[in-house]
């Protein structure tokens, strides 16, 4: 062929070389996502590449924005619970918990211990569920396909447990303002007990495939480092923060829902790299198992929802004999319940980090403003700091390690 062929489809940017040396560099702009197998949903990264080295990374979000905060303003307080499931769809019960705790704080409601313990137990199972999806997809990104399917095998049982409790596998909406949606069904505790009894062996199985695998260690060690000072300043929370050596965990620091009654460790590492985050999450899974086991052993008897007639729905059988119950039911369902004016911020330790709800009430039955502070959003903000200067192949490892859920980022 006589003619020169231009390299097709390659955008070349001309800019000054790093350090202002006046050197001309030719960098490649690579659009990663929103349709990409390893951006965990619809994250779009605009990467400026010099060879395979990332010069600049710019996350572009919003592809999954559904306006949940706006919708929440037009719904009654009890209806918003169903919206919270859909934010971080891998940890619906943790979302539920953060939301109902915020509303209960506004209402100054006392929750019976049995409900609190059940909440803790299910929130920890949700953490396991979320960490399993994280481990599976993270390993898949790095090429270990088998771990992915092993994790989903165990997750299946967890989803069945959630279905048993709430009737739904993912969009559970099981925690309601004032307690639980339904009394925990018979046999639930036995089923959880059974799961907990074999699950630690499964963690060993995942670790056997990864922890000492030299390819895995090579792909994750010393990659995606962030310093403790940066991590705090950029609002990084959760396992990513604990992987830089800061033992910050809201379950210990600002205990909620009777977490102070449970004995557990807060695993930390000091390396601050992808491998450290992996080890922290693996250790967290074992701690969660411990918490669930304690909850099973010491599960209190008693009511599963607060005695707050205007807020919690009355029992079904009561409604057949008591006119007051029927009226309360009708009123709550049709016109909600009024919440005293004020503003609260309640944060819990979700699987990804601090999951906070800021709610402003104007005294009416609908939240005047409901803002969700999601861990993924803040953690993602620190992503360019971890990526820049690394190789393209590290991008997927680092994105996997901060464990974002795009529903959580975009809301």
């Amino acid at each position: 062929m006589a003619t020169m062929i231009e390299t097709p489809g390659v955008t070349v940017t001309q800019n000054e070389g790093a350090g202002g040396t006046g050197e001309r560099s030719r960098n490649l702009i690579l659009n990663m996502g929103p349709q990409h197998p390893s951006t965990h949903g619809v994250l779009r990264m605009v990467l400026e590449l010099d060879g395979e080295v990332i010069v600049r990374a710019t996350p572009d979000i919003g592809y999954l924005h559904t306006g949940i905060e706006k919708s929440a303003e037009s719904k009654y307080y009890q209806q918003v619970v169903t919206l919270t499931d859909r934010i971080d769809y891998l940890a619906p019960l943790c979302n539920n918990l953060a939301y109902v705790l915020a509303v209960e704080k506004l209402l100054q409601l006392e929750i019976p211990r049995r409900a609190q313990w059940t909440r803790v137990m299910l929130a920890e199972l949700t953490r396991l569920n979320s960490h399993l999806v994280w481990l599976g997809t993270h390993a898949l990104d790095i090429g270990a396909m088998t771990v992915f399917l092993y994790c989903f095998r165990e997750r299946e049982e967890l989803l069945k447990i959630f279905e048993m409790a709430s009737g739904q596998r993912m969009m559970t909406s099981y925690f309601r303002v004032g307690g639980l949606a339904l009394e925990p069904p018979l046999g639930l505790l036995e089923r959880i007990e059974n799961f907990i009894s074999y699950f630690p062996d499964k963690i060993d199985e995942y670790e056997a495939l990864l922890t000492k695998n030299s390819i895995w260690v090579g792909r994750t060690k010393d990659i995606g480092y962030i310093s403790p000072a940066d991590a705090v300043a950029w609002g990084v929370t959760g396992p990513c923060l604990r992987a830089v050596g800061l033992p910050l965990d809201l379950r210990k620091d600002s205990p909620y829902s009777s977490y102070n009654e449970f004995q557990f460790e807060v695993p930390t590492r000091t390396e601050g790299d992808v491998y450290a985050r992996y080890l922290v999450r693996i250790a967290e899974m074992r701690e969660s198992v411990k918490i669930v086991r304690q909850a099973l052993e010491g599960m209190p008897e008693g009511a599963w929802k607060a005695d707050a007639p205007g807020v919690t729905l009355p029992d079904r059988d009561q409604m057949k004999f008591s006119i007051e119950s029927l009226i309360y039911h009708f009123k709550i369902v049709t016109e909600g319940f009024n919440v005293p004016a004020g503003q609260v911020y309640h944060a819990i330790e979700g699987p990804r980090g601090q999951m906070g709800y800021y709610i402003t009430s104007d005294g009416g039955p609908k939240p005047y403003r409901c803002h969700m502070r999601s861990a993924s959003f803040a953690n993602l903000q620190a992503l360019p700091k971890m990526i820049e200067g690394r190789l393209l192949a590290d991008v997927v490892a680092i994105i996997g390690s901060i464990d974002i859920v795009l529903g959580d980022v975009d809301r």
Partner: protein
Amino acid sequence: MSTVAFFVLSLVKCLIVLFILLTAVAYIQLAERKIVGRMQSRVGPTRVGPFGLLQPAADAVKFILKEDVTPDGAHKFLYILAPILAVVLALLSITVIPIGGTVTVFGIQTALQLTDINVGLLLILGVTSLGVYGVVLAGWSSNSKYSLLGALRGGSQMISYELALGLALIGPIMLAGTLSLRGIVEAQAHLHWFIVPEIVAFFIYLTAAFAETNRIPFDLPEAEGELGAGYHTEYSAMKFAMFFLAEYVNMITVSCVATLVFLGGWMGPLFGPTWLHMVLPTVYFIVKVCFFLFLYIWVRGTLPRFRYDQLMAFGWKVLVPLALANVMVTSLVVALR
């Protein structure tokens, strides 16, 4: 043998080999899905035919019927040439591979091989080296950055590991004193399988072969986690199927070479009646090749993927020096013998 008879015989053998090879590719792929499925606590394909045995046929029909997309701005000629190149080169290297001794069918005595040239191994190495053109041209011509990056990786990876692969084969060649694959196998009949004296070369060859065929843990050119599907991201339908075919044929080729050079080819204990003496070598050969293919699948179910720079470092800093050292030691031994 007259010229006409030679041509007819060659043509018949070509068709038989092509048929067997394509069927083998289809079923290796099914076996891979089944075995990996079992390893990952799944069942694999079960719906098409008994135990999913007709799945490859369904796949083939799908590949033929799918829309064939050529991206905007692709370099048409090279875009079409690349998969053809890949598949032709992959098929070419199988021609010199003997799958057994000589047999007599309908009174015609013939070697179980398309052609026995005295530099068979060299031809295979040469042809597989050319295979990189398919990858590079595909990535370059399809007007996509992911493809381009995949092709860049593929190009450098295949060239680097080619070296280790070739060096690993030098040891056995020196021991056998021939480049003919048939000669190498027959040399092992007198001595012992070359895996015994050349165990280091065997493992170097095995590792390099994984890289050469772009399989996990060296599947960087098509690392789906990062690059979509790498150099064949933009390909669809039959063109994609051709890359697919080429990958599996290459897998078979390197497994065959490993069997011939290190595991004594079709050598094995012979017993029973005369017809069994004819069949058994081929059976041994196929069993040994299947062992390698199973290894491929097994590794895929176990390991994560290397990173690009780690892969290059491993190739140049570990495999090549090791292979060179092995060549030196072997030549010393051969010289002293």
